[in-house]
């Protein structure tokens, strides 16, 4: 239940109290993690635990390394030339850099939604079931079923159920982003990474996606990067604040927004820099 509170530094931000649910506290565990693009160190000594089935928000000024950390959780940064890391990231206790773990199977467990919606130039249906096609599902009934469930979860079903065979490129921006979410959850990943999913959307579409995040967290562990303090406060259970590649503070969202322990955090969320 959202409540209005009056934290000293950010008076107009609504904060939801952290929901306590069953699940591993250190579901995703990042330990002393550092990351370089060539000679440039983009992340430095990051250590944080993300509990199962919670929403964690990454906030911080532009260029502080939020996306870099997020993209390392499913090893998307492997695509960049000349990168290197130190420390380790484990999911359910297993390192994502484990030689026996194929990056493809990692990515099947860790879905991702990008800042700019990026539907494929295919039909709505084919977009949603792409992840299933990739693993070789051919049964039409299974695909249709998965398509409908994912679209319903992404709150898009009613809008597109009559145009499943139309090109996805004909959807509106907000619909496309929700389509990308549907696509990311179609193969039931355990973790959903979202990199500023609402930055190109209007308030109504943003609201829909935020509602969606509420619903999805019953099943998924969600990590979201956002530039909107309000959004972080509204949707997340825990929040991490980064600055210049360093993790400044990581705590429950309530604590970060109402009673941050670091002066830098307070300055940032109250809008004094960023």
């Amino acid at each position, binding site marked *: 239940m959202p409540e209005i509170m009056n934290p000293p530094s950010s008076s107009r931000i609504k904060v939801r109290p952290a929901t306590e649910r069953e699940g591993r506290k250190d579901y995703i565990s990042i330990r002393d993690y550092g990351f370089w693009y060539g000679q440039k160190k983009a992340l430095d000594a990051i250590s944080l635990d993300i509990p199962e089935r919670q929403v964690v928000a990454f906030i911080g000024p532009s260029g502080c390394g939020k996306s870099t950390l997020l993209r390392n959780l499913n090893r998307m940064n492997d695509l960049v030339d000349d990168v290197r890391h130190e420390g380790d990231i484990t999911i359910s206790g297993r390192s994502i850099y484990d030689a026996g773990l194929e990056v493809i199977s990692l*990515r099947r467990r860790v879905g991702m939604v990008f800042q700019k919606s*990026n*539907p494929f*130039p295919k039909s709505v249906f084919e977009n949603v079931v*792409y992840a299933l096609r990739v693993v070789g599902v051919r049964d039409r009934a299974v695909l249709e079923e998965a398509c409908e469930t994912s679209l319903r979860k992404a709150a898009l079903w009613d809008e597109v159920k009559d145009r499943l065979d139309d*090109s996805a490129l*004909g959807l509106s921006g907000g619909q496309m982003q929700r389509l990308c979410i549907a696509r990311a959850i179609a193969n039931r990943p355990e973790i959903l990474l979202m990199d500023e999913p609402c930055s190109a959307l209007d308030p109504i579409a943003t609201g829909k996606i935020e509602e969606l995040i509420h619903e999805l967290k019953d099943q998924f562990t969600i990590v979201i990067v956002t530039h909107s303090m309000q959004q972080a406060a509204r949707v997340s259970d825990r929040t991490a604040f980064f600055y210049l590649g360093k993790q400044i503070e990581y705590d429950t969202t309530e604590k970060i927004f109402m009673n941050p322990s670091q002066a830098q955090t307070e300055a940032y969320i109250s809008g004094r820099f960023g």
Partner: protein
Amino acid sequence: MDKSSDSSTPRGEGWVWFTGLGLIIGLGMVIGLLSLVVMNGVTVFWAPKVPVALVDDGRTIIGQLAQRRIRAGSPADHPRYELQYQVGLRELNGNSYLWVDEAKIKSESFPADVLGLERVENGPAFVRPLSLRKSDGKLIAITDSAFEPAFQAEVAAASAVREKLVEITRHRIGDVNEEMDKARVALRRAEDLKLAAEIADRRRQIAGLEVRFASLQAEAKKVVEGGAVASLVSKDAAGREVVVPLTQVIRAWFPNRLDTWGRVQLFFSRLGEFIFDEPREANTEGGLMPAIFGTLVMTVFMSLMVTPFGVITAIYLREYAQNGPVLRIVRISVNNLAGVPSIVFGVFGLGFFVYVLGGSIDQLFFADQLKYNNNTPVFGTGGLLWCSLTLALMTLPVVIVATEEALAAVPRGMREASLATGASKWQTIRDILLPASAPGILTGVILAMARGAGEVAPLMLVGVVKLAPTLPFDGSAPFLHMDRKFMHLGFHVYDLGFQSPDSDAARPMVFATTLLLIVLVVCLNIGAIWIRNRLRARFKGASF
């Protein structure tokens, strides 16, 4: 604002005019070229009026005006013209074309009885008919009203006979000959290996074929003898009597009597012959069917070969190869390949494809054929396959570069989205990158096709011939004969224009053939562009 920056605007305008001028010159050249080809190419089939001209020196000329030009050495302010007439009757006049000083022509009239004849041999004729000697020996004078219907009927009957004859001699006897050749090779092999049963079989087969051959020849003879022996008695410009057997006549028309509709009909009849018939008279007459077909088939095969090769290479270069000096060198080499003169590819095609590859194929699969058929190569000589391959190699860089560019132009987000759902690299390429870059790839294929279809030089070395006895495609298995030599429109233009014994007669055909080649290339391109636009439409329509 100071003056110097002000004055830069007019200077900039100057460059606009300069670039505009470049465009105009370029466009002008293209339009000039096209209109020259179209004008000259289309008028070949049009039948103008044919004058009977009286010349100063007492000669009479009956002929179709072919050219008018300024006489060499005539003063620039008072140019004197000379006219070229196509008078035909090569067997009598020695030459079908005749130059006359325009000033020396006393009078010109257009009598209605002038008759134009297209003949199987010796080119056209322009005569004034006197009478028709029908096949039953009866004479019908031109003045008789029964002349014209009887004449047309006899011409039709004669051409039916001629077609039947062609069918027998060229096609059926040709088939028998081909079978005979195969049987003889098989017989020689059987004799060599002492296969008694097969020897007997083959001997029997050959005997059977010989019987068929003889009966076909007899049939042909009967057709010739039993057919129309009607002939047209007429006189030529000089008043000599000319007797033309109607079996020689392909088309006859009264040029000065035809109404416009008649001329249009004649135009399309000739155009149809040009497109659908086989060539006659050292390619200066008749149709271009084999050349059109050869060009088309070769271009399509070239595209079918170059596209997968180029696309696969580009995928490797762009998606898999490690960035580094080696890759850079490979890229530079590929780009330089595009600048190599095409004849070099011809030499390479001959040396590698024909002799090495074709030679090995013959050794491996056609050893018997070589051994028992006087070392006649099958694939070890120029042919459709090697032509397509040579041109595919030549146009490879175009497709590689276009594909690489198209792959690079696929938005990064799309690639990442696919990989993030757990697709492998290959799945991403196959399902996302290739479909999205298909329009760009097709653009490359279109360019390759345009270049390949018009290329002649390398083809002369690896399999294009002046006159191919058979099409590369026919009813006998395997239907498409990639080893056969074939005819090509581009080579045809070269052959007509520079190798023809009768350059005057060849001239109009050069233009018509050029026009046809251009039309063919344009059609191929339009087809490919149409496909590309349909693909493109599928990827358009993003709304934000």
